[in-house]
């Protein structure tokens, strides 16, 4: 996989009416706020609920993606693996307690085909450990495909492509 396969470069605004773009952009932004709140409040068990049953979640280093290398830092194919990741974080992994804060911005709806909405957003995650200053854990871009049903979105695919190739220690919670 390379970056162009993740999402062909689309420099023009989506060929949707202004009203559709406004509505869909709002729905994606609202979705991302809820997604970020669940993670930042430590409700990791709620995380799989943002995805469809057949969803794919990938956390990819940008240099690997650009070189066509498929290895992900986290990879879930299907809701089962999403739940297993959430369970492992909650019950089996050992890590220092931390606060995280997602900032999700530059949200842009790229298009809609039937009930599939494609969008991209930049994200950054700040992490704060006990007795330490807040650090930037990761910056990257979400490349998303949502399923839309009425006013409700669910992720069918979220590919988080991160610039922070040299990971500071580790990434505990999925971006």
């Amino acid at each position, binding site marked *: 996989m390379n970056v162009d396969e993740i999402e062909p470069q689309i420099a023009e605004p989506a060929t949707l009416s202004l009203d559709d773009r406004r509505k869909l952009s709002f729905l994606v932004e609202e979705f991302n706020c809820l997604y970020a709140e669940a993670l930042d409040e430590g409700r990791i068990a709620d995380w799989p609920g943002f995805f469809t049953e057949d969803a794919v979640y990938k*956390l990819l*280093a940008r*240099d*690997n993606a650009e*070189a066509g*290398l*498929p*290895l*992900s*830092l*986290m*990879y*879930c*194919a*299907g*809701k*089962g*693996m999403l*739940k*297993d*990741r959430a*369970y*492992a974080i909650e*019950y*089996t*992994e*050992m*890590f*220092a307690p931390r606060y995280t804060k997602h900032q999700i911005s530059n949200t842009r709806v790229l298009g809609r085909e039937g009930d599939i909405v494609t969008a991209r957003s930049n994200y950054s995650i700040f992490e704060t450990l006990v007795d330490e200053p807040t650090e930037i854990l990761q910056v990257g871009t979400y490349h998303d495909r949502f399923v839309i049903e009425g006013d409700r979105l669910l992720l069918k695919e979220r590919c988080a492509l991160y610039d922070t*190739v*040299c*990971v*500071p*220690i*580790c*990434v*505990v919670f*999925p971006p």
Partner: protein
Amino acid sequence: MGNMTQFPDHSKEAPDAERLKAYSWPDDPTLVPEWIYTDEYIAELEQQRIFQGHTWNYCGLEVEVPEPGSYIRSYLGSMPIIVTRDEEGEIHAFENRCAHRGAEFCKTYRGKTETFICPYHQWTYGLDGALISVPFRRGVKGKGGMPKDFDMEANSLRRLNVTTRNGAIFVSSQDDMEPFEDYLGPMMVEQFDTVFDGRPLKLLGVHRNILEGNWKLYQENLKDTYHATLLHTYLTTFGLFVASNETFVMTDDTGRHSTTCNRRPEGRPDADETTAEIGSFHSAMQLADPSVLNYVKESDSQWTSNAMTVWPNLVLIRQTNIFSARQIVPMGPNKFMLIWCSFGYADDDPEMLEHRLKQNNIFGPGGFIGIDDNEVIKFVADGAQRGAGRDGVIPLGRDDEPSDTVITDRALRGMYSWYRKEMGL
């Protein structure tokens, strides 16, 4: 100008005796002094006497430089190097530092090129590190330029000795290195070949992370089988590594290399006296998608996992169907980088590739058990840097015990016995 292509050899110089008097290693072999994790001078001495000393240092896989002109950035100890493949298919390694003004000129992880050009003054080097051209060598209109006796060869990049075995690349700045097989010893060669059996490899990708702590803590982590059964709930719960599994911990005659071989039982471990002592054992835990942990038999090895350390900087892992080579890159006493190179076989079908990619969730800077180790090393480093001074203790097991116990610090004692010799401590 002298021959600058050779590395200055500090490895055989006696360390500053006066300065070393301040460091006193405890007599008790079960104690490890804390200053080896925090001291700047010790870290500097390690670069000279270990990494640039009499060692073969892992620096990458042949599959990372698959074609003529392919290159990667890598390291020898803390020193940035470049690993290339030339037009004849031969592999070279040299310092990533221009012979002129010393700039670290290669700033990309990997790529393909015919030459390396330092951007500062465009000194140009070939794929073997040899200096090819210097702009305005004769000056302009007869004025300026390089001295008449300027020796191109002597101003090439500092070149390293290279050896390979079954697809893994090792470098040394020493000219008198024994063959890699002799460096490992016969028992470790056999273990090495369970991961690198000579089949062509397929590169899956590379993770990088920066850990807070001393690089030796990572070597220790792999030699410390006691922790694997306790810290890693994920491993124990799903039977990938449990104290009651059939396991061998072996070191070579010098104590510097080690390996842990383990056979995982069929299915999940029962709740019994072994799991009862593991406070982190979760017998209720069930995977929603257990296929991730399937073991697809792909070799004759009787083991389901091998965790090997090759002194000083390679950790080689075969766990179920995961293959990974981790390079330890020291960055001063309190920091190191890990470069995790994950691979499969060139003839993997799409299904096997997918299986390996899913299973790789276990390791890495976001791995189910990778996270445990990355985090706990910072816990130890925080203790060493902030706490009141005290030695570390490695008392478990005996040095003459049979190799089939995991509740032991034997391999750590072996490593530090070798470390003291190499460092002159």
